[in-house]
């Protein structure tokens, strides 16, 4: 599964994205966040405040309970600050 990270989440993890084999029991965005957090301290730091983490599946905003089955691309980022 292709994962992308933006802004301070990208900086804390130390890369803009990666392709990972995600176990089948990881069913939702919230599950994926918890699974990533356990991968190492840099992920723990990036996702320490889940309330400040937003997600997109296939370039569309989704909520934490969104199922990830069949997702081509999942992105994690802080609340947006454009305009």
């Amino acid at each position: 599964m292709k994962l992308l990270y933006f802004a301070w989440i990208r900086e804390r993890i130390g890369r803009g994205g990666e392709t990972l084999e995600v176990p089948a029991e990881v069913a939702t965005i919230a599950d994926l966040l918890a699974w990533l957090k356990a991968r190492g301290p840099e992920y723990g730091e990036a996702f320490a405040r889940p309330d400040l983490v937003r997600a997109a599946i296939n370039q569309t905003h989704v909520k934490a309970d969104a199922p990830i089955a069949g997702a081509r691309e999942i992105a994690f980022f802080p609340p947006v600050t454009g305009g």
Partner: protein
Amino acid sequence: MAVRVQAEDFDVGRETSALTAGRTDIGAIVTFTGTVRGEAKGRPLASMTLEHYPGMTEAELERVEAEAHARWPLDASLIIHRYGELKPGDNIVLVIAASRHRHAAFEAAAYLMDYLKSRAPFWKKETALDGTGHWVDARETDEAALARWEGFGTRDA
């Protein structure tokens, strides 16, 4: 209807002329330009860098623009948003809404800005004069600004 995400600057006059060239049905054109302020929380700024999510940014801007066209009788519209390193005073974003009458154009331009601020995947990082960087926090007031559009806007505006 058009959306552009680019590093390059834009010229408001040139974009407005191009959007409405040859059109005699339009009676009202509202343009909004957002620019980089030279200070943040009382401290002078050296630069502001905008990061974005290529692909999703364009898709979100197009969704926001389509929604504005569904709510107001717009005859033409344009959204340009820049990314990369910008200096104080530089242009960041341009929204143009054109309609037969002013109310639809005013309202649609404000709606486009409110929605793109809360939906389009851009992130601002400010760099102070001493080189330290700071990611701008999202403002709750931006999210609250969306509430006023509930049930607002009609094709008869």
